[in-house]
């Protein structure tokens, strides 16, 4: 966390507009991101867009379950905006619980958010409220669950056609856990 007087300009603008709904400014390897309340997600993006951040570079997520020292809700959704006139960038982040992860859609502000949000729904199960076409982007409709969440079994696959010598992921995972316990690594 960086002290308020060294926050980047975009964070200061957000602080002025959102007040306490700007939760904090995170710093990771020298890059600062404004963490906002999930309810203020769309408002924050609209404000930044009105200040010249007119290009959505990226929108993605990460599941921080079990991440050392992580206090906030586990599902972190982040985005990067770029100002084509100012050549400046802004990073925005919101943390959501795993159950009922919801955010307002940005697809009315940025057309490209449509597919970013579909991918984010596909992989992390973040429901973007108001999205015009929220269906899986990469995986198939029959797929159950969201595979980039930490609670998705790492070896579990969901074949569409019968597979010979398919991996029994549960027994493999159990064997790995047992081996890790034996090594005293405490992982698995």
């Amino acid at each position, binding site marked *: 966390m960086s002290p308020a007087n060294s926050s980047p300009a975009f964070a200061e603008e957000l602080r002025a507009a959102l007040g306490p709904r700007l939760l904090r400014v995170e710093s990771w390897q020298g890059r600062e991101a404004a963490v906002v309340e999930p309810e203020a997600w769309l408002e924050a993006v609209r404000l930044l867009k009105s200040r010249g951040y007119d290009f959505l570079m990226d929108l993605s997520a990460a599941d921080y379950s079990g991440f050392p020292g992580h206090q906030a809700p586990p599902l972190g959704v982040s985005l990067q905006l770029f100002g084509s006139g100012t050549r400046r960038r802004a990073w925005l982040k919101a943390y959501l619980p795993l159950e009922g992860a919801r955010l307002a859609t940005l697809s009315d502000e940025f057309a490209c958010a449509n597919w970013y949000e579909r991918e984010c729904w596909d992989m992390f199960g973040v429901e973007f409220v108001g999205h015009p076409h929220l269906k899986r982007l*990469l*995986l*198939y409709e029959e*797929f159950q669950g969201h*595979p980039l969440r930490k609670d*998705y079994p*790492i*070896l*579990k*696959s*969901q*074949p*569409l*056609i*019968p*597979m*010979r*010598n*398919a*991996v029994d992921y549960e027994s493999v995972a159990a064997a790995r856990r047992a081996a890790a316990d034996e090594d005293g690594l405490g992982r698995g």
Partner: protein
Amino acid sequence: MAGDPLQEVVVTTKLDRVLGWARKYSLFQYPFVTACCGMEFMATSGSHYDTDRFGAAFPRFSPRQADLLMVVGTITHKQAPILKRVYDQMCEPKWVVAFGVCATSGGFYQNYGSVPGIDCFLPVDMYIPGCPPRPETVIDALLKLQDRIQNQRQALL
């Protein structure tokens, strides 16, 4: 039978051998290219290495006209039914080559998305290792496959 005039003009062989000879030099490929291995496949098919020299470079982009299915690249669970359908549409006799480690065993992918080797749902005749394989490896596999076709029992369907 010295002096037999037929010996001058007739060569005798077995039906299996002559069919094998015809089949191994007229392989029509269906390239099922899904990933980066495709670049190496193109390099091998191109004029520099030129698989046409071995009578095995003619690509047909319809499975109904092909007898050699080249599976080049990672096959995902989403893609698997499509590949199975392509295979089912090919006429006998047909052969399958797993090109590169992803088609062979899933390679370094072991996750929710990838099939751990196309032999989970297709019979594979030749596996080509490498990530990606060198053109020499591909040509070696092709020659071995031709050898196999030459010496197999030729089913007449």
